[in-house]
Protein backbone atom coordinates (compact mmCIF):
# COMPACT_ATOMS: atom_id res chain seq x y z
CA UNK A 1 0.00 0.00 0.00
CA UNK A 2 2.77 2.36 1.06
CA UNK A 3 4.59 1.42 -2.06
CA UNK A 4 1.54 2.41 -4.20
CA UNK A 5 1.25 5.76 -2.36
CA UNK A 6 4.89 6.47 -3.03
CA UNK A 7 4.34 5.62 -6.69
CA UNK A 8 1.38 8.02 -6.92
CA UNK A 9 3.33 10.68 -5.03
CA UNK A 10 6.30 10.44 -7.34
CA UNK A 11 3.98 10.44 -10.38
CA UNK A 12 2.36 13.67 -9.16
CA UNK A 13 5.77 15.22 -8.57
CA UNK A 14 6.83 14.32 -12.08
CA UNK A 15 3.60 15.74 -13.46
CA UNK A 16 4.16 19.03 -11.60
CA UNK A 17 7.73 19.23 -12.82
CA UNK A 18 6.54 18.46 -16.36
CA UNK A 19 3.84 21.12 -16.22
CA UNK A 20 6.32 23.65 -14.90
CA UNK A 21 8.71 22.85 -17.69
CA UNK A 22 6.04 22.73 -20.39
CA UNK A 23 3.19 25.00 -19.30
CA UNK A 24 -0.09 24.90 -21.23
CA UNK A 25 0.48 27.12 -24.21
CA UNK A 26 -0.64 30.66 -23.68
CA UNK A 27 -1.98 32.62 -26.61
CA UNK A 28 -0.21 35.73 -25.33
CA UNK A 29 2.42 35.91 -22.62
CA UNK A 30 3.75 39.37 -21.80
CA UNK A 31 6.62 39.62 -19.33
CA UNK A 32 7.61 43.07 -18.12
CA UNK A 33 7.12 44.66 -21.51
CA UNK A 34 7.79 48.40 -21.37
CA UNK A 35 8.24 51.30 -23.74
CA UNK A 36 10.04 54.58 -23.27
CA UNK A 37 10.22 57.05 -26.15
CA UNK A 38 12.86 59.72 -26.54
CA UNK A 39 11.06 62.90 -27.47
CA UNK A 40 12.27 66.37 -28.36
CA UNK A 41 14.59 67.40 -31.17
CA UNK A 42 17.46 69.22 -29.48
CA UNK A 43 16.95 68.28 -25.86
CA UNK A 44 15.99 64.65 -25.79
CA UNK A 45 13.93 63.55 -22.83
CA UNK A 46 12.46 60.20 -21.96
CA UNK A 47 8.69 59.77 -22.10
CA UNK A 48 7.29 56.58 -20.74
CA UNK A 49 4.45 55.16 -22.80
CA UNK A 50 4.17 51.82 -21.01
CA UNK A 51 5.23 50.73 -17.53
CA UNK A 52 6.48 47.12 -17.24
CA UNK A 53 3.46 45.07 -18.19
CA UNK A 54 2.78 41.45 -17.28
CA UNK A 55 -0.19 39.81 -18.91
CA UNK A 56 -1.27 36.31 -19.84
CA UNK A 57 -4.06 35.46 -22.20
CA UNK A 58 -5.20 31.86 -22.51
CA UNK A 59 -6.06 30.28 -25.80
CA UNK A 60 -9.71 30.63 -26.77
CA UNK A 61 -10.29 33.67 -24.55
CA UNK A 62 -11.85 36.96 -25.52
CA UNK A 63 -9.66 39.42 -23.68
CA UNK A 64 -10.57 43.09 -23.40
CA UNK A 65 -7.85 45.68 -23.02
CA UNK A 66 -9.57 48.72 -21.62
CA UNK A 67 -8.46 52.24 -20.99
CA UNK A 68 -9.18 55.85 -21.81
CA UNK A 69 -7.68 57.47 -24.89
CA UNK A 70 -3.90 57.71 -24.62
CA UNK A 71 -3.71 55.03 -21.93
CA UNK A 72 -1.17 52.87 -23.74
CA UNK A 73 -3.47 50.35 -25.45
CA UNK A 74 -2.25 51.04 -28.96
CA UNK A 75 1.39 51.15 -27.81
CA UNK A 76 0.97 47.67 -26.32
CA UNK A 77 -0.57 46.37 -29.53
CA UNK A 78 2.18 47.96 -31.62
CA UNK A 79 4.77 46.31 -29.41
CA UNK A 80 3.09 42.95 -29.86
CA UNK A 81 2.90 43.44 -33.62
CA UNK A 82 6.59 44.36 -33.84
CA UNK A 83 5.81 47.85 -35.12
CA UNK A 84 7.68 49.48 -32.24
CA UNK A 85 10.49 47.90 -30.27
CA UNK A 86 10.31 47.42 -26.49
CA UNK A 87 12.62 49.30 -24.13
CA UNK A 88 12.51 46.31 -21.81
CA UNK A 89 10.80 43.00 -21.14
CA UNK A 90 9.60 40.46 -23.63
CA UNK A 91 6.49 38.85 -25.01
CA UNK A 92 5.52 35.67 -26.78
CA UNK A 93 2.52 34.91 -28.91
CA UNK A 94 1.57 31.26 -29.30
CA UNK A 95 4.87 30.47 -27.62
CA UNK A 96 6.90 32.20 -30.32
CA UNK A 97 9.02 35.35 -30.39
CA UNK A 98 7.42 38.54 -31.71
CA UNK A 99 9.58 38.65 -34.83
CA UNK A 100 8.96 35.03 -35.79
CA UNK A 101 7.29 34.89 -39.23
CA UNK A 102 5.66 31.53 -38.31
CA UNK A 103 3.87 33.32 -35.48
CA UNK A 104 2.85 36.21 -37.71
CA UNK A 105 1.23 33.79 -40.14
CA UNK A 106 -1.07 32.75 -37.29
CA UNK A 107 -2.23 36.15 -36.09
CA UNK A 108 -4.54 38.79 -37.49
CA UNK A 109 -4.41 42.50 -36.68
CA UNK A 110 -6.85 45.35 -37.15
CA UNK A 111 -5.22 48.72 -36.41
CA UNK A 112 -7.12 51.64 -34.94
CA UNK A 113 -8.95 53.69 -37.59
CA UNK A 114 -7.61 51.56 -40.42
CA UNK A 115 -6.69 53.08 -43.73
CA UNK A 116 -5.94 50.88 -46.67
CA UNK A 117 -4.50 51.21 -50.15
CA UNK A 118 -7.33 53.21 -51.63
CA UNK A 119 -6.34 52.45 -55.22
CA UNK A 120 -7.33 48.84 -54.64
CA UNK A 121 -10.79 47.30 -54.61
CA UNK A 122 -11.84 45.36 -51.52
CA UNK A 123 -11.24 42.09 -53.38
CA UNK A 124 -7.77 43.16 -54.58
CA UNK A 125 -6.85 44.30 -51.07
CA UNK A 126 -7.81 40.99 -49.53
CA UNK A 127 -6.02 39.04 -52.26
CA UNK A 128 -2.88 41.09 -51.57
CA UNK A 129 -3.03 40.49 -47.83
CA UNK A 130 -3.83 36.82 -48.39
CA UNK A 131 -0.74 36.48 -50.57
CA UNK A 132 1.42 38.18 -47.94
CA UNK A 133 0.03 35.85 -45.27
CA UNK A 134 0.91 32.83 -47.37
CA UNK A 135 -2.64 31.69 -48.14
CA UNK A 136 -2.59 28.91 -50.72
CA UNK A 137 -3.13 30.41 -54.19
CA UNK A 138 -5.74 27.78 -55.06
CA UNK A 139 -7.86 28.64 -52.02
CA UNK A 140 -7.31 32.39 -52.09
CA UNK A 141 -10.29 33.38 -54.26
CA UNK A 142 -12.77 31.26 -52.31
CA UNK A 143 -11.40 32.51 -48.96
CA UNK A 144 -11.62 36.13 -50.11
CA UNK A 145 -15.22 35.70 -51.24
CA UNK A 146 -16.15 33.89 -48.01
CA UNK A 147 -14.72 36.62 -45.78
CA UNK A 148 -16.29 39.38 -47.91
CA UNK A 149 -19.60 37.60 -47.43
CA UNK A 150 -18.94 37.30 -43.70
CA UNK A 151 -18.38 41.05 -43.26
CA UNK A 152 -21.19 41.91 -45.68
CA UNK A 153 -18.99 43.57 -48.28
CA UNK A 154 -19.54 41.11 -51.12
CA UNK A 155 -21.69 43.64 -53.03
CA UNK A 156 -18.90 46.21 -52.86
CA UNK A 157 -16.10 43.73 -53.59
CA UNK A 158 -15.08 45.46 -56.83
CA UNK A 159 -15.37 49.03 -55.56
CA UNK A 160 -12.15 50.94 -54.89
CA UNK A 161 -11.57 51.56 -51.19
CA UNK A 162 -11.38 55.34 -51.75
CA UNK A 163 -15.16 55.20 -52.19
CA UNK A 164 -15.77 53.31 -48.95
CA UNK A 165 -17.43 54.86 -45.90
CA UNK A 166 -15.72 54.69 -42.51
CA UNK A 167 -17.87 51.77 -41.43
CA UNK A 168 -17.13 49.88 -44.65
CA UNK A 169 -13.39 50.46 -44.15
CA UNK A 170 -13.68 49.08 -40.64
CA UNK A 171 -15.36 45.96 -41.99
CA UNK A 172 -12.69 45.62 -44.68
CA UNK A 173 -10.16 45.90 -41.85
CA UNK A 174 -11.81 43.09 -39.93
CA UNK A 175 -11.93 41.03 -43.13
CA UNK A 176 -8.18 41.35 -43.67
CA UNK A 177 -7.56 40.44 -40.02
CA UNK A 178 -9.46 37.13 -40.21
CA UNK A 179 -8.92 36.22 -43.88
CA UNK A 180 -6.06 33.78 -43.29
CA UNK A 181 -7.84 31.95 -40.46
CA UNK A 182 -5.50 33.17 -37.68
CA UNK A 183 -5.40 31.58 -34.22
CA UNK A 184 -5.12 34.91 -32.40
CA UNK A 185 -6.85 38.07 -33.56
CA UNK A 186 -5.80 41.51 -32.29
CA UNK A 187 -8.37 44.25 -32.76
CA UNK A 188 -7.59 47.86 -31.87
CA UNK A 189 -10.85 49.71 -31.21
CA UNK A 190 -12.85 47.48 -33.58
CA UNK A 191 -16.16 49.25 -32.89
CA UNK A 192 -14.97 52.78 -33.54
CA UNK A 193 -16.72 54.52 -36.40
CA UNK A 194 -19.48 51.95 -36.60
CA UNK A 195 -23.21 52.60 -36.35
CA UNK A 196 -25.26 50.50 -33.88
CA UNK A 197 -25.96 47.85 -36.53
CA UNK A 198 -22.30 47.73 -37.47
CA UNK A 199 -21.31 47.36 -33.82
CA UNK A 200 -23.71 44.50 -33.36
CA UNK A 201 -22.31 42.79 -36.46
CA UNK A 202 -18.76 43.13 -35.16
CA UNK A 203 -19.84 41.82 -31.77
CA UNK A 204 -21.41 38.78 -33.47
CA UNK A 205 -18.24 38.33 -35.47
CA UNK A 206 -16.06 38.34 -32.36
CA UNK A 207 -18.38 35.84 -30.68
CA UNK A 208 -18.19 33.74 -33.81
CA UNK A 209 -14.40 33.77 -33.63
CA UNK A 210 -14.57 32.48 -30.05
CA UNK A 211 -16.90 29.64 -31.01
CA UNK A 212 -14.33 28.63 -33.61
CA UNK A 213 -11.69 28.44 -30.87
CA UNK A 214 -9.87 31.67 -31.73
CA UNK A 215 -8.30 33.95 -29.17
CA UNK A 216 -9.39 37.56 -29.45
CA UNK A 217 -7.46 40.39 -27.84
CA UNK A 218 -9.22 43.66 -28.37
CA UNK A 219 -8.70 47.14 -27.06
CA UNK A 220 -11.57 49.47 -26.51
CA UNK A 221 -12.78 52.34 -24.43
CA UNK A 222 -16.40 51.34 -24.98
CA UNK A 223 -17.11 49.44 -21.78
CA UNK A 224 -20.49 48.01 -22.75
CA UNK A 225 -18.83 46.16 -25.61
CA UNK A 226 -16.20 44.74 -23.30
CA UNK A 227 -18.80 43.74 -20.70
CA UNK A 228 -20.91 41.99 -23.31
CA UNK A 229 -18.05 40.13 -25.00
CA UNK A 230 -15.06 39.54 -22.81
CA UNK A 231 -14.13 36.61 -20.62
CA UNK A 232 -11.48 38.73 -18.93
CA UNK A 233 -10.44 42.36 -19.07
CA UNK A 234 -7.43 44.39 -18.12
CA UNK A 235 -7.58 48.09 -17.37
CA UNK A 236 -4.69 50.28 -18.34
CA UNK A 237 -4.25 53.95 -17.55
CA UNK A 238 -1.28 56.24 -18.18
CA UNK A 239 0.68 53.27 -19.43
CA UNK A 240 0.18 51.26 -16.26
CA UNK A 241 -1.91 48.16 -15.65
CA UNK A 242 -4.55 49.10 -13.07
CA UNK A 243 -6.65 45.98 -12.82
CA UNK A 244 -7.23 42.61 -14.39
CA UNK A 245 -9.74 39.86 -13.93
CA UNK A 246 -12.76 37.96 -15.16
CA UNK A 247 -15.68 40.22 -16.06
CA UNK A 248 -18.00 38.06 -13.97
CA UNK A 249 -15.77 38.55 -10.89
CA UNK A 250 -15.30 42.25 -11.38
CA UNK A 251 -19.01 42.88 -11.71
CA UNK A 252 -20.17 40.36 -9.08
CA UNK A 253 -20.07 42.51 -5.97
CA UNK A 254 -23.50 43.50 -4.72
CA UNK A 255 -23.93 46.85 -3.03
CA UNK A 256 -26.72 45.60 -0.74
CA UNK A 257 -29.20 47.63 -2.77
CA UNK A 258 -32.05 46.67 -5.08
CA UNK A 259 -33.55 48.41 -8.05
CA UNK A 260 -37.35 48.30 -8.37
CA UNK A 261 -39.15 49.47 -11.49
CA UNK A 262 -42.93 49.85 -11.88
CA UNK A 263 -45.35 51.33 -14.32
CA UNK A 264 -46.71 54.90 -13.89
CA UNK A 265 -44.92 57.89 -12.41
CA UNK A 266 -46.78 57.57 -9.11
CA UNK A 267 -44.53 57.02 -6.09
CA UNK A 268 -46.46 55.54 -3.11
CA UNK A 269 -46.17 57.34 0.18
CA UNK A 270 -43.52 55.80 2.38
CA UNK A 271 -41.17 54.64 -0.40
CA UNK A 272 -39.36 57.96 -0.43
CA UNK A 273 -38.79 57.69 3.31
CA UNK A 274 -37.05 54.30 2.85
CA UNK A 275 -33.89 56.02 1.70
CA UNK A 276 -34.75 55.43 -1.94
CA UNK A 277 -33.39 57.30 -4.96
CA UNK A 278 -36.42 57.86 -7.24
CA UNK A 279 -36.20 58.45 -10.98
CA UNK A 280 -39.40 58.88 -13.01
CA UNK A 281 -39.22 58.79 -16.78
CA UNK A 282 -42.26 58.65 -19.04
CA UNK A 283 -44.79 56.25 -17.54
CA UNK A 284 -42.39 54.30 -15.35
CA UNK A 285 -40.55 54.87 -12.09
CA UNK A 286 -37.23 53.39 -10.96
CA UNK A 287 -36.09 53.42 -7.35
CA UNK A 288 -32.91 52.18 -5.73
CA UNK A 289 -33.21 51.37 -2.06
CA UNK A 290 -31.49 49.30 0.67
CA UNK A 291 -32.13 45.55 0.36
CA UNK A 292 -33.80 45.36 3.83
CA UNK A 293 -36.55 47.72 2.62
CA UNK A 294 -37.37 45.63 -0.46
CA UNK A 295 -40.36 43.75 1.05
CA UNK A 296 -41.90 46.90 2.53
CA UNK A 297 -41.58 48.71 -0.79
CA UNK A 298 -43.16 45.85 -2.75
CA UNK A 299 -46.02 45.76 -0.17
CA UNK A 300 -46.56 49.48 -0.71
CA UNK A 301 -46.75 48.97 -4.48
CA UNK A 302 -49.21 46.11 -4.06
CA UNK A 303 -51.44 48.27 -1.83
CA UNK A 304 -51.56 50.95 -4.53
CA UNK A 305 -52.22 48.28 -7.23
CA UNK A 306 -49.19 49.48 -9.20
CA UNK A 307 -47.84 47.18 -11.90
CA UNK A 308 -44.39 45.88 -11.06
CA UNK A 309 -41.89 45.61 -13.94
CA UNK A 310 -38.69 44.36 -12.31
CA UNK A 311 -36.77 43.83 -9.06
CA UNK A 312 -33.02 43.34 -9.49
CA UNK A 313 -30.05 43.57 -7.12
CA UNK A 314 -27.72 46.44 -7.95
CA UNK A 315 -24.36 45.14 -9.14
CA UNK A 316 -21.09 46.86 -9.86
CA UNK A 317 -20.97 47.47 -13.59
CA UNK A 318 -17.71 47.28 -15.47
CA UNK A 319 -18.03 51.03 -15.82
CA UNK A 320 -18.15 51.43 -12.02
CA UNK A 321 -15.08 49.25 -11.68
CA UNK A 322 -13.30 51.11 -14.46
CA UNK A 323 -14.05 54.52 -12.96
CA UNK A 324 -13.02 53.27 -9.52
CA UNK A 325 -9.65 52.08 -10.84
CA UNK A 326 -8.97 55.31 -12.65
CA UNK A 327 -10.25 57.42 -9.75
CA UNK A 328 -8.13 55.60 -7.17
CA UNK A 329 -5.02 55.99 -9.21
CA UNK A 330 -5.68 59.66 -9.77
CA UNK A 331 -5.83 60.20 -6.01
CA UNK A 332 -2.70 58.20 -5.32
CA UNK A 333 -0.84 60.10 -8.02
CA UNK A 334 -1.83 63.37 -6.41
CA UNK A 335 -0.18 62.49 -3.11
CA UNK A 336 2.96 60.74 -4.23
CA UNK A 337 5.51 61.29 -6.90
CA UNK A 338 5.71 58.37 -9.31
CA UNK A 339 8.54 55.94 -9.18
CA UNK A 340 8.71 52.57 -10.88
CA UNK A 341 5.38 50.76 -10.72
CA UNK A 342 5.88 47.11 -11.48
CA UNK A 343 2.55 46.04 -12.93
CA UNK A 344 1.13 42.82 -11.70
CA UNK A 345 -1.24 40.67 -13.56
CA UNK A 346 -1.04 36.93 -13.41
CA UNK A 347 -4.78 36.52 -13.83
CA UNK A 348 -6.01 37.43 -10.36
CA UNK A 349 -8.39 40.27 -9.62
CA UNK A 350 -6.57 43.35 -8.43
CA UNK A 351 -8.51 45.81 -6.36
CA UNK A 352 -6.63 48.77 -5.08
Amino acid sequence: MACTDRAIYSFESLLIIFLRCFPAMLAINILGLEKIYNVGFWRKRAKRALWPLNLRVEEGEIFGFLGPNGAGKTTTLKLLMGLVFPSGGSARILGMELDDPRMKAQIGFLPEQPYFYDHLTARELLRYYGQLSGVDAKQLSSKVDAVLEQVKLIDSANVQLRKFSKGMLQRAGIAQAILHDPKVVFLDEPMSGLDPMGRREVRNLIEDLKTHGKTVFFSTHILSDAEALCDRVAIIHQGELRGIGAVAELTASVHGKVEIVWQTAVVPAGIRSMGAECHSAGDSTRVILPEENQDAALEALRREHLRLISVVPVRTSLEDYFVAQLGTSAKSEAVSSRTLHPATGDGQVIKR
Partner: protein
Amino acid sequence: MNARILHIATNTFREAVRDRVLYNLIAFALLMSAAAVLVGQISIHIEKLVVINLGLTAVSLFGIVIAVFIGIGLVSKEIDKRTLYTVLSRPVRRWEFIAGKFLGLAGTLVVNTFFMAIGVFAALAYVSHHLESADLGVLVALYFIVLQFVMITALALLFSSFSTPIFSAIFAFWLFVIGSFAQDLRNFAAMAHGITRFLATAAAYLVPNFSALNVISQVAHGEPVPHRLILLNTTYVLVYSAAVLSGAVLIFERRNLK
Protein backbone atom coordinates in the same frame (compact mmCIF):
# COMPACT_ATOMS: atom_id res chain seq x y z
CA MET B 1 12.50 35.72 -56.09
CA ASN B 2 10.88 35.74 -52.67
CA ALA B 3 7.10 35.65 -53.30
CA ARG B 4 6.34 38.33 -50.70
CA ILE B 5 8.76 40.78 -52.32
CA LEU B 6 7.08 40.09 -55.65
CA HIS B 7 3.60 40.75 -54.20
CA ILE B 8 4.75 44.03 -52.61
CA ALA B 9 6.44 45.05 -55.88
CA THR B 10 3.27 44.25 -57.85
CA ASN B 11 1.16 46.28 -55.46
CA THR B 12 3.58 49.22 -55.67
CA PHE B 13 3.49 49.02 -59.47
CA ARG B 14 -0.32 48.87 -59.45
CA GLU B 15 -0.53 51.86 -57.08
CA ALA B 16 1.80 53.89 -59.32
CA VAL B 17 0.03 53.10 -62.59
CA ARG B 18 -3.33 54.04 -61.05
CA ASP B 19 -1.97 57.44 -60.05
CA ARG B 20 -3.20 60.18 -62.39
CA VAL B 21 -0.09 62.29 -61.77
CA LEU B 22 1.95 59.66 -63.54
CA TYR B 23 -0.10 59.98 -66.73
CA ASN B 24 0.18 63.77 -66.64
CA LEU B 25 3.95 63.49 -66.46
CA ILE B 26 4.11 60.94 -69.28
CA ALA B 27 1.84 63.16 -71.39
CA PHE B 28 4.22 66.09 -70.75
CA ALA B 29 7.20 63.97 -71.76
CA LEU B 30 5.48 62.92 -74.98
CA LEU B 31 4.57 66.55 -75.66
CA MET B 32 8.23 67.44 -75.26
CA SER B 33 9.07 64.82 -77.90
CA ALA B 34 6.44 66.33 -80.18
CA ALA B 35 7.86 69.79 -79.50
CA ALA B 36 11.29 68.40 -80.44
CA VAL B 37 9.87 67.66 -83.89
CA LEU B 38 8.78 71.29 -84.27
CA VAL B 39 12.10 72.64 -83.06
CA GLY B 40 13.89 70.14 -85.28
CA GLN B 41 12.09 71.41 -88.36
CA ILE B 42 13.46 74.91 -87.86
CA SER B 43 16.98 73.59 -87.14
CA ILE B 44 18.42 73.05 -90.59
CA HIS B 45 20.59 69.89 -90.91
CA ILE B 46 20.59 69.20 -87.19
CA GLU B 47 16.96 68.06 -86.86
CA LYS B 48 17.97 64.61 -85.67
CA LEU B 49 20.41 65.98 -83.11
CA VAL B 50 17.74 68.29 -81.68
CA VAL B 51 15.11 65.55 -81.55
CA ILE B 52 17.43 63.10 -79.77
CA ASN B 53 18.71 65.76 -77.38
CA LEU B 54 15.31 67.17 -76.46
CA GLY B 55 13.49 63.83 -76.52
CA LEU B 56 15.94 61.99 -74.29
CA THR B 57 16.31 64.95 -71.93
CA ALA B 58 12.51 64.99 -71.54
CA VAL B 59 12.47 61.23 -70.81
CA SER B 60 15.25 61.68 -68.26
CA LEU B 61 13.83 64.73 -66.48
CA PHE B 62 10.25 63.52 -66.26
CA GLY B 63 11.43 60.08 -65.18
CA ILE B 64 13.52 61.64 -62.41
CA VAL B 65 10.51 63.70 -61.28
CA ILE B 66 8.34 60.56 -61.22
CA ALA B 67 11.04 58.56 -59.38
CA VAL B 68 11.51 61.25 -56.74
CA PHE B 69 7.87 62.11 -56.19
CA ILE B 70 6.69 58.53 -55.96
CA GLY B 71 9.88 57.30 -54.26
CA ILE B 72 9.76 59.79 -51.38
CA GLY B 73 6.32 58.54 -50.35
CA LEU B 74 7.07 54.86 -50.65
CA VAL B 75 7.76 54.37 -46.95
CA SER B 76 6.69 57.61 -45.27
CA LYS B 77 3.23 57.56 -46.86
CA GLU B 78 2.72 53.99 -45.70
CA ILE B 79 3.64 55.04 -42.16
CA ASP B 80 1.47 58.17 -42.23
CA LYS B 81 -1.53 56.30 -43.56
CA ARG B 82 -0.81 53.29 -41.35
CA THR B 83 -1.08 50.90 -44.31
CA LEU B 84 2.28 49.56 -43.20
CA TYR B 85 0.81 48.22 -39.94
CA THR B 86 -1.28 45.58 -41.68
CA VAL B 87 1.67 44.58 -43.87
CA LEU B 88 4.32 44.26 -41.15
CA SER B 89 1.95 42.41 -38.82
CA ARG B 90 2.09 39.61 -41.40
CA PRO B 91 5.02 37.30 -42.07
CA VAL B 92 6.81 40.06 -43.96
CA ARG B 93 10.35 41.11 -42.97
CA ARG B 94 11.14 44.80 -43.06
CA TRP B 95 13.90 44.28 -45.63
CA GLU B 96 11.42 42.44 -47.84
CA PHE B 97 9.14 45.45 -47.70
CA ILE B 98 11.96 47.80 -48.77
CA ALA B 99 13.06 45.44 -51.55
CA GLY B 100 9.50 45.06 -52.81
CA LYS B 101 8.90 48.80 -52.83
CA PHE B 102 12.15 49.41 -54.70
CA LEU B 103 11.47 46.78 -57.34
CA GLY B 104 7.87 47.99 -57.78
CA LEU B 105 8.91 51.56 -58.48
CA ALA B 106 11.89 50.55 -60.61
CA GLY B 107 9.54 48.35 -62.65
CA THR B 108 7.10 51.25 -63.04
CA LEU B 109 9.89 53.47 -64.32
CA VAL B 110 11.07 50.85 -66.82
CA VAL B 111 7.54 50.57 -68.23
CA ASN B 112 7.21 54.39 -68.34
CA THR B 113 10.54 54.70 -70.10
CA PHE B 114 9.41 52.12 -72.64
CA PHE B 115 6.33 54.21 -73.55
CA MET B 116 8.25 57.48 -73.56
CA ALA B 117 10.94 55.85 -75.73
CA ILE B 118 8.27 54.96 -78.28
CA GLY B 119 7.49 58.69 -78.42
CA VAL B 120 11.17 59.55 -78.97
CA PHE B 121 11.60 56.95 -81.73
CA ALA B 122 8.35 58.07 -83.39
CA ALA B 123 9.67 61.68 -83.42
CA LEU B 124 13.01 60.46 -84.75
CA ALA B 125 11.36 58.43 -87.51
CA TYR B 126 9.19 61.44 -88.43
CA VAL B 127 12.18 63.79 -88.74
CA SER B 128 14.66 61.45 -90.49
CA HIS B 129 11.99 59.39 -92.36
CA HIS B 130 13.84 56.18 -91.50
CA LEU B 131 15.70 54.59 -88.59
CA GLU B 132 19.29 53.37 -89.06
CA SER B 133 21.59 51.13 -87.07
CA ALA B 134 23.39 54.17 -85.62
CA ASP B 135 20.14 55.07 -83.87
CA LEU B 136 20.64 52.06 -81.63
CA GLY B 137 22.87 54.38 -79.62
CA VAL B 138 19.63 55.98 -78.46
CA LEU B 139 18.75 52.66 -76.85
CA VAL B 140 22.03 52.74 -74.91
CA ALA B 141 21.24 56.29 -73.76
CA LEU B 142 17.79 55.11 -72.69
CA TYR B 143 19.38 52.20 -70.80
CA PHE B 144 21.61 54.67 -68.95
CA ILE B 145 18.57 56.81 -68.18
CA VAL B 146 16.91 53.73 -66.65
CA LEU B 147 20.08 53.20 -64.58
CA GLN B 148 19.73 56.81 -63.35
CA PHE B 149 16.15 56.03 -62.33
CA VAL B 150 17.29 52.94 -60.42
CA MET B 151 19.82 55.00 -58.48
CA ILE B 152 17.47 57.91 -57.74
CA THR B 153 14.73 55.45 -56.66
CA ALA B 154 17.14 53.86 -54.18
CA LEU B 155 18.10 57.31 -52.87
CA ALA B 156 14.48 58.47 -52.57
CA LEU B 157 13.66 55.26 -50.72
CA LEU B 158 16.61 55.80 -48.35
CA PHE B 159 15.42 59.31 -47.47
CA SER B 160 11.83 58.14 -47.24
CA SER B 161 12.85 55.55 -44.63
CA PHE B 162 13.72 58.23 -42.06
CA SER B 163 12.55 61.63 -43.29
CA THR B 164 9.41 63.49 -44.26
CA PRO B 165 8.36 63.58 -47.94
CA ILE B 166 9.35 67.25 -48.35
CA PHE B 167 12.86 66.79 -46.96
CA SER B 168 13.21 63.53 -48.87
CA ALA B 169 12.36 65.35 -52.12
CA ILE B 170 14.84 68.14 -51.35
CA PHE B 171 17.62 65.67 -50.50
CA ALA B 172 16.98 63.50 -53.56
CA PHE B 173 16.86 66.41 -56.05
CA TRP B 174 19.89 68.01 -54.42
CA LEU B 175 21.86 64.78 -54.80
CA PHE B 176 20.69 64.42 -58.39
CA VAL B 177 21.93 67.91 -59.24
CA ILE B 178 25.26 67.43 -57.44
CA GLY B 179 25.62 63.95 -58.94
CA SER B 180 25.12 65.39 -62.42
CA PHE B 181 28.29 67.41 -61.81
CA ALA B 182 30.18 64.52 -60.18
CA GLN B 183 32.82 64.49 -62.91
CA ASP B 184 33.49 68.23 -62.41
CA LEU B 185 33.77 67.59 -58.68
CA ARG B 186 36.36 64.86 -59.36
CA ASN B 187 38.30 67.19 -61.65
CA PHE B 188 38.24 69.86 -58.94
CA ALA B 189 39.45 67.35 -56.35
CA ALA B 190 42.37 66.39 -58.59
CA MET B 191 43.47 70.03 -58.74
CA ALA B 192 42.97 70.82 -55.03
CA HIS B 193 45.53 70.43 -52.24
CA GLY B 194 45.61 69.43 -48.57
CA ILE B 195 42.38 68.98 -46.64
CA THR B 196 40.32 70.47 -49.49
CA ARG B 197 41.59 67.74 -51.79
CA PHE B 198 40.69 65.08 -49.25
CA LEU B 199 37.17 66.47 -48.66
CA ALA B 200 36.50 67.08 -52.35
CA THR B 201 37.68 63.57 -53.26
CA ALA B 202 35.51 62.03 -50.55
CA ALA B 203 32.50 64.04 -51.69
CA ALA B 204 33.15 63.25 -55.35
CA TYR B 205 33.15 59.51 -54.71
CA LEU B 206 30.27 59.56 -52.23
CA VAL B 207 27.75 61.42 -54.38
CA PRO B 208 26.05 59.33 -57.06
CA ASN B 209 27.84 59.79 -60.36
CA PHE B 210 24.95 60.75 -62.63
CA SER B 211 27.28 62.53 -65.04
CA ALA B 212 28.77 59.19 -66.19
CA LEU B 213 25.25 58.04 -67.03
CA ASN B 214 24.52 60.97 -69.33
CA VAL B 215 25.51 60.08 -72.89
CA ILE B 216 22.65 61.95 -74.57
CA SER B 217 24.88 64.50 -76.30
CA GLN B 218 27.33 61.81 -77.40
CA VAL B 219 24.54 59.70 -78.87
CA ALA B 220 22.90 62.73 -80.53
CA HIS B 221 26.17 63.39 -82.34
CA GLY B 222 26.25 59.78 -83.53
CA GLU B 223 29.29 58.84 -81.44
CA PRO B 224 29.33 55.21 -80.29
CA VAL B 225 29.18 54.36 -76.59
CA PRO B 226 32.04 52.00 -75.58
CA HIS B 227 30.97 48.57 -74.35
CA ARG B 228 33.30 48.99 -71.40
CA LEU B 229 31.33 52.04 -70.25
CA ILE B 230 28.10 50.06 -70.40
CA LEU B 231 29.63 47.34 -68.21
CA LEU B 232 31.20 49.81 -65.78
CA ASN B 233 28.05 51.91 -65.45
CA THR B 234 25.88 48.84 -64.90
CA THR B 235 28.22 47.54 -62.19
CA TYR B 236 28.50 50.97 -60.58
CA VAL B 237 24.73 51.48 -60.42
CA LEU B 238 24.10 47.99 -59.06
CA VAL B 239 26.75 48.37 -56.34
CA TYR B 240 25.79 51.95 -55.44
CA SER B 241 22.04 51.16 -55.33
CA ALA B 242 22.65 48.02 -53.25
CA ALA B 243 24.67 50.08 -50.76
CA VAL B 244 21.98 52.77 -50.58
CA LEU B 245 19.23 50.18 -50.16
CA SER B 246 21.23 48.46 -47.43
CA GLY B 247 21.35 51.82 -45.65
CA ALA B 248 17.58 52.17 -46.05
CA VAL B 249 17.08 48.67 -44.62
CA LEU B 250 19.42 49.33 -41.69
CA ILE B 251 17.50 52.49 -40.77
CA PHE B 252 14.08 50.98 -41.34
CA GLU B 253 14.86 47.82 -39.35
CA ARG B 254 15.42 49.97 -36.27
CA ARG B 255 12.63 52.44 -36.77
CA ASN B 256 9.72 52.64 -34.33
CA LEU B 257 6.50 53.07 -36.32
CA LYS B 258 4.78 55.48 -33.94
